[in-house]
């Protein structure tokens, strides 16, 4: 009692309104962008944050469509030997240097270097030729229709600035000038950077585009405890948080002064199988054949899972059912295969009986517990639903730091995975998750279960180089039909986006979960 009074009195004595001006936005997210170097790390927190500071040749609009940024136009060269980009004139970097074709060439060399995480984006590129100060040809080894779409996060850095500050290559392990400082052409400049604590941005006066926002200062604070983040939003200490824990969303909505903005992320959550393993790893019936090699068993799993129930209860209505490895908002979504395997526990039992597992079997389900929204709860629900058709999953949930090494070591019979296509194209998950793993060609690097289908492997390079949209879509449709009928994965749902804001903030929520400051207005 005394203590409460003590606190109250001190609070009154010290209370001082540190009210921020209306145009300052303070926002919080779980993860601090670990570097200010746009080529060092290929992760959503870094790329999302730096999209406010740097720009690429193209950028994505509010609806994710690709629009001109540092390039004003682009066209294919010849029969698909590459793409010619016409650059915007009169663009300045934050330090005043002028943007030219040299910077594009430099940024290509920097971002495609072995030291850069963004290297894989340039796998199709065979060379970059500077034609004149404002024309650049990017040559590809095969026709590449989606190349301009795939480089929206390739950010252009000033060559002179990088050389002056000896940051011509990213250095992730020891850090360099570009780890803590940024010099882009974007709408905002980094004016204060305290790694792990806070980062302050201010608008760039010399930005080439018309400013839509009315922000004078923006401060980002990483808050990793979700309860603290919600409290900070409710008490007005921050103006925007991402994410709001699903279970707190209703409370944020009900309170005066704050609201929740919901949307659908680009990330599809799915179940994967150990296709390659001849035997189950975690089972009571050791030594017998791996049941998941039988397509009927995989189909039975798909039929046994009531995605709608997961969506309603665990996701509190905010997710969307998924039929494919991408959400309908992505390029190349197959409308022809939009139907999800229906929930049918009786059908699942029949299939299991047909496959010779009428008495069921037991196996191990691996699951992360801090990677996706309510991931462990989803796995528990899956375990329960599978038990109803007679197969018993032994759930092993663990933090993501332990999870990826387990998957890499093939320690699973079934696992949970979320996938967000970096290029916003259906080709991306097919390349990483469905094609036969091949380290040399850098294919199937996340296909942990080792699913393999010769026709899919054959279709992928065709999809990658087909210029004609209709033909390309037909090939994708065929690929989807194969992985659906083979039940290579069991797509569950598209993960929701749940942001919390104060009522006076107007913003645009994009499916890539990037918070773009140039669309924010404060009233």
């Amino acid at each position, binding site marked *: 009692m*005394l203590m409460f009074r003590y606190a109250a009195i001190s609070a009154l004595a010290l209370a001082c309104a540190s009210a921020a001006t209306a145009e300052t936005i303070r926002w919080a997210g779980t993860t601090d962008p670990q570097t200010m170097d746009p080529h060092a790390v290929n992760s959503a927190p870094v790329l999302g944050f730096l999209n406010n500071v740097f720009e690429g040749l193209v950028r994505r609009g509010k609806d994710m469509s690709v629009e001109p940024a540092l390039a004003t136009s682009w066209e294919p060269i010849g029969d698909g030997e590459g793409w010619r980009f016409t650059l915007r004139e009169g663009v300045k970097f934050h330090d005043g240097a002028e943007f030219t074709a040299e910077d594009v060439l430099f940024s290509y060399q920097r971002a495609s270097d072995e030291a850069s*995480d963004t290297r894989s984006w340039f796998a199709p590129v065979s060379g970059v030729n500077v034609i004149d100060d404002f024309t650049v040809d990017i040559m590809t080894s095969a026709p590449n229709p989606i190349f301009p779409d795939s480089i929206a996060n390739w950010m252009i850095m000033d060559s002179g600035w990088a050389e002056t500050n000896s940051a011509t290559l990213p250095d992730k392990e020891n850090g360099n000038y570009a780890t803590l400082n940024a010099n882009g052409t974007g709408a905002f400049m980094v004016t204060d950077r305290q790694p792990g604590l806070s980062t302050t941005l201010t608008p760039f006066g010399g930005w080439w585009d018309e400013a839509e926002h009315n922000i004078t200062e923006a401060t980002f604070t990483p808050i990793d405890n979700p309860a603290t983040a919600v409290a900070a939003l409710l*008490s007005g200490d921050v103006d925007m948080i991402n994410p709001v824990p699903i279970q707190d969303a209703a409370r944020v909505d009900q309170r005066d002064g704050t609201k929740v903005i919901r949307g659908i992320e680009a990330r599809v959550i799915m179940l994967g199988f150990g296709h390659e393993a001849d035997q189950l790893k975690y089972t009571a019936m050791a030594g017998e054949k791996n049941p998941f090699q039988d397509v009927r068993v995989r189909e039975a799993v798909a039929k046994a899972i009531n995605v709608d129930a997961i969506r309603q209860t665990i996701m509190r209505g905010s997710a969307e059912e998924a039929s494919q490895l991408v959400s309908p908002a992505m390029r190349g979504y197959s409308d022809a295969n939009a139907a999800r395997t229906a929930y049918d526990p009786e059908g699942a039992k029949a299939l299991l009986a047909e496959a010779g597992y009428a008495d069921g079997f037991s196996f191990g389900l691996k699951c992360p517990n801090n990677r996706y929204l309510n991931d462990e709860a989803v796995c528990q629900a899956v375990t329960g639903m599978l038990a109803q058709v007679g197969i018993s999953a032994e759930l092993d949930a663990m933090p993501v730091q332990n999870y990826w090494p387990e998957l890499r070591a093939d320690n699973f019979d079934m696992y949970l995975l979320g996938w967000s296509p970096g290029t916003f194209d259906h080709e991306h998950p097919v390349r990483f998750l469905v094609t036969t793993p091949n380290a040399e060609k850098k294919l199937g*690097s996340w296909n942990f279960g080792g699913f393999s289908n010769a026709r899919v492997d054959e279709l992928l390079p065709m999809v990658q180089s087909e210029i004609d949209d209709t033909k390309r879509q037909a090939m994708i449709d065929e690929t989807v039909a194969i992985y659906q009928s083979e039940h290579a994965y069991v797509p569950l749902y598209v993960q929701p986006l749940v942001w919390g804001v104060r009522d006076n903030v107007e913003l645009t929520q994009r499916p890539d979960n990037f918070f773009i400051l140039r669309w924010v207005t404060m009233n």
Partner: protein
Amino acid sequence: MFSFVIRRILQALLVLLVVGLVAFAMFNFIGDPIDNMLGQERTQEDVDRLKERLGLDQPFVVQYAKFLLAAAQGNFGVSYEQGRPVADILAERAPATLELAAVSGVFALTLGIVLGVFTAIRRDGFWANVIMTLSLVGVSLPTFLIGILLIYLFSVELDWLPSFGRGDTVQIGGWSTGLLTTSGLTALILPSITLGLYQMTLIMRLVRSEMLEVMRQDYIRFARARGLSERTVTFRHALKNTMVPVITVTGLQLGSLIAFAIITESVFQWPGMGLLFINAIQFVDIPVMAAYLMMISVMFVAINLIVDILYVAVDPRLRT
């Protein structure tokens, strides 16, 4: 005395070495930093290359030996997450933790002694009983829950105090202090209460039971008989004799204040070393974890050593 100190220091070094060994053995179970360091589009080749470059492919004993060798030369390595020297990061974060620990230590000690004496003198009074009952709550509620409750009451509902962070800080040399600004001081209130509450109740209960014990002694009765004022009897004669165990506990608890600030710092997003450690665990930032754990164990060992020496200084009977 001298040989006693030398012996204790040697023991302390052994303890440190063992702590480090155990810590390095456990890092293998915390997970793998590689996936955090490489993006989604990494290949197995990238994974193997980075592992080799960081020395993670070697057994933990070798990793530990390398760490010790570098640490002996004052080099604690580079953070995997931030790409900056760990020593710089720790130095940057230390003031926040130390100020928080100091303020909550002062809070716990002052209030703990005052309330302890009060409840001992008025042992059957109404308020003494209320305080004793409430102190049970303080001991049994977990820190994070107290923190969240305080935030909801004073930040969200009453809107008197900030819900997170350190407020404005002033840079004095290499030290950033929040003690010189109003927003810095207001930001200290809730975290220090959260962090110090357990220690306060502990000290209070300790002082109370020691006081009750001492008050029954003959010399107190004689002091009263000599006509000394009640205040002199309580504070000069009784309280002074309860101090030996209080010093021990306070000393040891000072260590826990810094070490267990982890939870409080994470609840209040307090930018100190504990928060750094939590983030390091999530990222599997081995150099940061190793340096932090070594620092904390050095601190505990040093505090124990000082307490042992103080003991001997305070209580002449221990000098053999």
